[in-house]
């Protein structure tokens, strides 16, 4: 990697072009990126636009420019500001989907293990672990005061007698504390096969190798059970 006088890495223009071509080759590209009137309705209705330096109109215009340099400027934290609510897609008069093309760009950032993606997703690893190793992604024992102090004192409700409180829920599937519902091991094995075949495990390996190793240990245990 080359660096400029400020120590910032110099990304070759060929690489930026490769990233753009990768996005353009995605089979959803033509559906998500159509004509753009530059009307700004998408940005006017965009929820994260109110709190971040982020505009779905700019995303669309950059994609329409076909300029790899402009597209590259969005590949850092910019694309991660999007809430993925698809307000932009709902209200666009030309049926563009800036939220959709952002999902494509995020896939590329993660698949290629970009540092920006690694940094953004680092605090997200607990969810990734639950989902990929056990088949659902939010468990009652995750909702604890240590992790969510800003959710107020009542969040501690789940930290005492959790097992008996879950047992009192009148749905047998929900009477567990370490998963949202009790997923059968055979079901988890099917999910692992899907993740193997669709390349999902590989994606996780590229964005978080240590997490991938932990997940694989769990997967091996379940598969051998």
């Amino acid at each position, binding site marked *: 990697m080359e660096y400029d006088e400020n120590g910032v890495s110099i990304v070759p223009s060929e690489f930026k072009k490769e990233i753009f071509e990768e996005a353009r080759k995605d089979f959803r590209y033509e559906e998500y990126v159509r004509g753009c009137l530059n009307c700004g309705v998408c940005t006017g209705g965009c*929820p994260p636009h109110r709190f971040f330096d982020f505009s779905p109109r700019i995303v669309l215009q950059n994609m329409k420019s076909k300029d790899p340099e402009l597209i590259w400027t969005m590949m850092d934290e910019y694309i991660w500001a999007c*809430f993925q609510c698809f307000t932009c897609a709902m209200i666009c008069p030309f049926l563009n989907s800036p939220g959709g093309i952002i999902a494509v760009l995020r896939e590329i950032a993660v698949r290629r293990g970009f540092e920006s993606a690694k940094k953004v*997703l680092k605090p997200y690893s607990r969810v990734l672990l639950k989902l990929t190793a056990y*088949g659902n992604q939010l468990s009652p024992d995750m909702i604890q005061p240590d992790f969510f102090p800003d959710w*107020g004192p009542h969040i501690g409700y789940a930290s005492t007698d959790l097992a008996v409180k879950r047992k009192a829920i*009148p*749905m047998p599937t929900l009477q567990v504390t370490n998963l*949202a519902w009790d997923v059968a091991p055979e079901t988890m094995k099917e999910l692992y096969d899907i993740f193997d075949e669709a390349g999902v495990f590989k994606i996780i390996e590229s964005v978080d190798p240590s997490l991938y190793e932990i997940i694989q240990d769990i997967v091996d245990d379940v598969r051998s059970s």
Partner: protein
Amino acid sequence: MAIEISNRLGLANVKSGYIHSAGRKLEDIHEQLLELEAKGEVKVIHVKDENKAIEADTLLGWKKKIPTNKLWHHKSCGQCGNIPGYPVSLLWFMNQMGLEYVDERNQTSCTAWNYHGSGTSNPVGLAAVAVRNWHRAYELGLFPLFHCATTFGDYKEMRNLLVEHKELRDEVRRIMHKIGRELVIPEYIVHYSEWVHVMRFEIAKLKKYDLSNIIATVHPACHTYKMIPEDCIYDKDIYAGKRTAVSTGVALALGAQVADYSTWYDCCGFGFRHILTEREASRSFVMDRKIRPMVREAHSDVCITQDTGCTTTLDKNQWIGKAMGYTEQVPVMADVMFAALACGADVFKIVQLQWHTTDWRPLCEKIGIDWKKSEEEYNAYLEELKAGGKTVNLYEYPKS
């Protein structure tokens, strides 16, 4: 400076002969799906007579059949993880109505929350997970009912992509063969809120409390009506057909007042990733764009939701607002939970409001519900369970 608007009531009741077109010329994916079935490309989970479907209009006037019986519950990670009263209230209603369903362990997450938060999947992975779960309903001879709005949005998108792209179908079919399953697609992708909507008059027959003094504000979930917007229920008698009718429909049928507020179209601030890792954005959004307008403009007694992430985000992020001097608070619950309360379901054992953080007791008191009695009985029940007592379940696994 707050904008005080004295009358935001009544808009939900406006009727119209207007049919939404939104300038869209879209192919009806349902017809294309049946064509693929005729060619032997896919198998379809059809709505059968035994599903006792009720028809509803969607955005563009297309008809959608909503099955009401013989359903396979496709649960939601967030609901089961931290809003358990959400699925329990739904099952409670189905039991009250003597309907048949299966809730089992043989189901995975749709994985779409993770995808929209982290990008760590792809269309093949998402579509294969969707088909895997659809096929499970198919082999049981049941119709799948999706509890989460993100599942609903994602599965609508995956159905469309599978119908439109042969390469995706081929790849997913290959993966399904590997795990001993087939490529099946439901005739309709149905969200639980659509079930609640078409059953609203049956639900209203069970009503125990007068709700005429209750002002509700509805937060429609983005992934219900903004993802594949043409496949979402609209009703000419609700908001004159200009907003999705689900959730508002059942609140009106139960006799509550539904009030308008200026930011009804805004998302909740969940953001998929933001709720966990950039929470200052989520909580600012909750207070500034949703809770304050609901309280200040509409004097809302309750915020009615139709999704997992919205219910969590809007409920959990109000307490921290006090740090910024925001005093507005409003209890948050899903349409089916609000309906269950109105129909006499137990506050603790069924609606499970004890897991919610924003105070819901004033709402119960305004409705006339004795939550203290319910709490006492629940605490006694917990003691029984601690002593080795058995849970009284709404449902037991099938024996085979």
